[in-house]
């Protein structure tokens, strides 16, 4: 128990101190994870929608693949991106390894299937209910997808939030492609890993509590927006 109290105390002191290094780590974490989620949403939503409304040979296989990739181990995603971006890899010339950009790419790979998978499920249900209407009205494919995305916007927030959760929590991918370089690629989760290695368990857990509060704040904000939008839509 005293360990847990120490951790709470450490978290509190971290926040109070307003340490510039901590502020830098927090803002890097947020900008990497949120940017990755934006990209993952841009790729994942259309992909999920396309899988929901279209019927083509191999669709089932594609659905299974997306669902399986939702559980892609972060280390594997990280290793994959590492080998791509390494100087000896196909994209080595870009010199992106050990930069925040590499971390965004790795998290995008990790989060896209989650957004696509959750979105597909939500949109497929809508498609089952309204699909015939679109077909009867002769609405084109692209407009149908756009309309479904709009209809399902409240459920899609959940898809995006699942992505945010994954991106904010993972350490395996960004540790490999970012290298946990102090002041350059050190984020909340890689800092927690480092402090655990140093045996400073209270500080590590304290950082974890700060991270948890941040993720909680993001989710609360999303919930608030969703409720406000919903009541506005009801009027």
């Amino acid at each position, binding site marked *: 128990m005293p360990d847990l109290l120490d951790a709470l105390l450490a978290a509190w002191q971290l926040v109070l101190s307003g340490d510039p290094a901590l502020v830098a780590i927090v803002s890097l974490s947020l*900008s990497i994870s*949120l*940017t990755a989620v*934006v990209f993952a949403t*841009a790729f994942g939503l259309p992909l999920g929608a396309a899988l929901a409304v279209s019927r083509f040979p191999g669709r089932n296989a594609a659905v299974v693949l997306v669902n399986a990739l939702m559980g892609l181990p972060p280390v594997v995603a990280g290793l994959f991106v590492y080998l791509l971006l*390494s*100087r*000896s*890899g196909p994209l*080595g010339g870009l*010199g992106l*390894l*050990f*930069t*925040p*950009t590499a971390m*965004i790419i790795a998290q995008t790979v990790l989060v896209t299937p989650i957004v696509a998978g959750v979105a597909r499920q939500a949109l497929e249900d809508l498609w089952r209910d309204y699909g015939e209407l679109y077909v009867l009205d002769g609405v084109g494919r692209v407009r149908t997808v756009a309309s479904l995305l709009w209809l399902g916007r409240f459920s899609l927030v959940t898809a995006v939030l699942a992505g945010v959760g994954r991106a904010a929590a993972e350490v395996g991918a960004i540790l490999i492609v970012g*290298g*946990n*370089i*102090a002041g*350059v690629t050190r984020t909340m989760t890689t800092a927690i890993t*480092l402090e*655990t*290695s*140093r*045996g*400073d*368990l209270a500080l590590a857990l304290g950082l974890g509590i700060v991270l948890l509060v941040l993720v909680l704040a993001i989710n609360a904000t999303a919930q608030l927006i969703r409720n406000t939008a919903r009541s506005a839509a009801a009027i």
Partner: protein
Amino acid sequence: MRAWVLALTAGFFLLSASSANAEQQFITVASTTSTEESGLFGHLLPGFTKETGIEVRVVAVGTGQALKIGERGDCDVVFVHDKPAELDFVAKGFGIGRREVMYNDFVLIGPGADPAQVGRGKDIVAAFRKIAQAQAPFVARGDDSGTSKAELRLWQEAGVDSTAARGGWYRDTGSGMGPTLNTAAAMDGYALSDRGTWLSFKNKQDLKIVVEGDRRLFNQYGIMLVNPVKHPEVKQALGRKFIDWLVSPAGQQAIANYKINGEQLFFPDADSRRPGA
């Protein structure tokens, strides 16, 4: 939503632009967890950066992985502690200009009760034999790091087949020095650690040094440039500047000055007369 996307994308580009600015003057060094986790780099690098304007970005991993990063051309300089592997790295043409920089030593860590009766002797090989005889838990790195390789050499010298004891008293964690010490603390096990990581480690619990001072526990650190002939992107001039600084009197003094609770962690031993190999 669209405004959000725009704002975040703009933020992302600003982020990459700011790192692009710094790109003119930085090198990437693949090094070991012991140099990073002991706080040595935190002590050394600000001085070097102030003097030269070169930022040093350290990727701290095990020696085996650090050499691999160098082999793939993903860093400019490798700073590690496994002499046979380093010499092999240079022999294969992956690295050039290897210099010895400093040393410290390994220590055998164990629970205060000392169930294997290793005592506080100096003979590390005898201590390893006693641990094997008592079948006391030994927590191993098992991650191809310099410490891991040194440990395996000691088991060999003790005539103990540690691979056969895997899953039994020999517990191969496949993790860094810190996590290994965390595990040893939790299961009252023995572990081989470099002194630097041990001194700066904060979760010691009941663990203590049980053997130290054996000549065979000597731990040499070496630094080398990744071969620019193999990887033209290597920042040769900046990398050399860093190496030269570390082996210069100023760099050597800075290493000697690093202390935790008054105890010196690393001992500079660069031979300044020796030119790069």
